[in-house]
């Protein structure tokens, strides 16, 4: 906002004003630089530590450039821990959660956004109110129910309950509502059924919104910590976050920073690549859900 003023107020031959603009610009760039360091340094430090030989990790003073970089910790992570298995589990769980969420949320958002029927407002309100519900209330009943069925430690319990989420329905309801009503009339006259209309018209037009839902659900599932910690008992089902916390416990955090940093780096890399490719969908997804 200040910048808008600054640019508009910039007129020739007004030295005091120009000075004040330059000072405020310098201040803003200084702030941005500081912010960049605070958010960039920790991740960079993780990568650098993971590349250092043991004697350099604990060197004083701190050095940001390893003298003899090594990948030995990365080898160690894969040799000593079932990292690939955790990745596989995370991938399966996140894929099931995301696919299921996309299908049921699309189907549900369509009538909520575009059809008039009894109970619409109540259903929408109940779904939205769960934004405010701390999920801790569900842990005990869900765990007991699933273990009674003998499936608490399974891909099913890691993925399917997570699809009962209000986020996607909310976002898609918002988005579907913005499509013009004439589309539906035209499709109906052409003999299109509602399901056909949803599949052939609404879904293709809503690709950005669907992408946001997919990405958020995927990342949310990928990073989920509490529920997998409760239900997984062995590496057969353990996801990356829970595996990492087991790795820290077994490697000993304070003695082996090298290997824990390498493990953290391995766990971070796919997420970061994924994010850099799909960044705009993240931003749009958060912005849409937070507003309107």
């Amino acid at each position: 906002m200040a910048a808008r003023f600054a640019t508009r107020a910039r007129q020739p031959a007004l030295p005091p004003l120009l000075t004040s603009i330059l000072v405020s610009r310098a201040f803003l760039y200084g702030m941005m630089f500081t912010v960049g360091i605070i958010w960039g340094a920790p991740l960079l430090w993780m990568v650098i530590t993971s590349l250092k030989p043991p004697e350099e990790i604990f060197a004083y003073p701190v050095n940001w450039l390893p003298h003899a970089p090594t990948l030995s910790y990365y080898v160690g992570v894969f040799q000593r821990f079932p990292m690939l298995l955790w990745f596989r589990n995370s991938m399966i769980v996140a894929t099931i959660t995301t696919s299921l969420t996309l299908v049921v949320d699309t189907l549900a958002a369509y009538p909520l956004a575009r059809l008039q029927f009894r109970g619409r407002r109540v259903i929408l309100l109940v779904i939205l109110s769960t934004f405010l519900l701390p999920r801790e209330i569900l842990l005990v009943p869900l765990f007991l129910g699933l273990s009674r069925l003998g499936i608490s430690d399974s891909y099913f319990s890691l993925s399917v309950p997570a699809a009962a989420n209000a986020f996607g329905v909310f976002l898609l309801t918002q988005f579907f509502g913005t499509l013009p009503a004439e589309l539906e009339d035209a499709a109906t006259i052409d003999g299109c059924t509602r399901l056909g209309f949803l599949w052939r018209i609404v879904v293709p037009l809503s690709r950005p919104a669907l992408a946001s839902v997919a990405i958020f659900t995927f990342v949310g599932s990928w990073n989920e910590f509490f529920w997998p910690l409760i239900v997984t008992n062995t590496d057969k089902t353990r996801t990356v976050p829970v595996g990492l916390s087991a790795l820290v416990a077994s490697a000993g955090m304070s003695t082996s920073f090298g290997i824990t940093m390498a493990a953290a780096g391995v766990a971070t890399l796919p997420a970061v690549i994924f994010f850099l490719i799909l960044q705009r969908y993240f931003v749009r997804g958060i912005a849409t859900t937070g507003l309107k």
Partner: protein
Amino acid sequence: MTTAFSEPALSRRATTPRFDFTSQRRLSPYLFLAPYLLLFGVFLMIPAVIGVFASFTDWSISGTPHFIGLSNYQTILNDPLFRQSLGNTLYFVAITAVPLIMVGLLLALLVNQNLRGRNLIRTLIFLPYVVSISVVGIIWVWILDRTFGLLNFYLSPLGIRPAIGWLTDVNAAMPALAVTTVWWTVNANMIIYLAGLQDIPEELYEAARIDGANRWQVFRFITIPMLLPVNAFVIPTTVIACWRVFGQAFVMTKGGPQGRTFVIAQYIYQTAFQNFRMGQAAAAAVILLLLTLLFTVVQLRAMKVL
């Protein structure tokens, strides 16, 4: 899920197509909703209701639960550990939610400026969003390490001695978790505020400028009021998320030192899944629910949204 338009002549009840038409049209919204509502009911609504009921029973991992009234509440409210977790969590909410909201807004204001490199900064701030709490915990335990940590290394020339054990000092541990949390999750608030800022009509700023308002007045009397709908979302959800804190404490401090970072969610975890006192854990979860509800209502009232 066919409509009357699909081959009415072939239908055996083609004599009453009008009836078919309306009944199917009336039914189909619910058919579309059915799969979601099934999941929603089975994995959310029903467990939530059972969760409340469970808090009034002596449920353990096996056997039949019996109704025992309010005795779980009595037990945990008299449990020093639970009381400590309540106090700790309240403290965490107080020192984390406010920075999450203020820093979120300030960062949004900053990256909304027309500055070179702002996209890089946005990306950097946003990166932790895709990182799990295990990774964040691992990184910050290393940075906050008393002897070899990056933070103490850069603080030592400033004369902060003896070095602070950020995660082992009883007074420093919770603030350290708060800082980690802000670093990890402020990005979501930043993005929401950024979208909110960009939705404010340019004319309002122009009008204010013509009226001779200074920067602070513009911020105070245009930006802040126009952000009310955003605040009505950001503030309650941030506070709720803080009440639910778990991973940070679990990964970084295990609730220590001396239980100073032992939070409600960890009490629930320990009571339910290590001591198998499901009823008591459910009661703790209900208390958590009531606290978040109370805080949300108070905030929305204060903002005159409710």
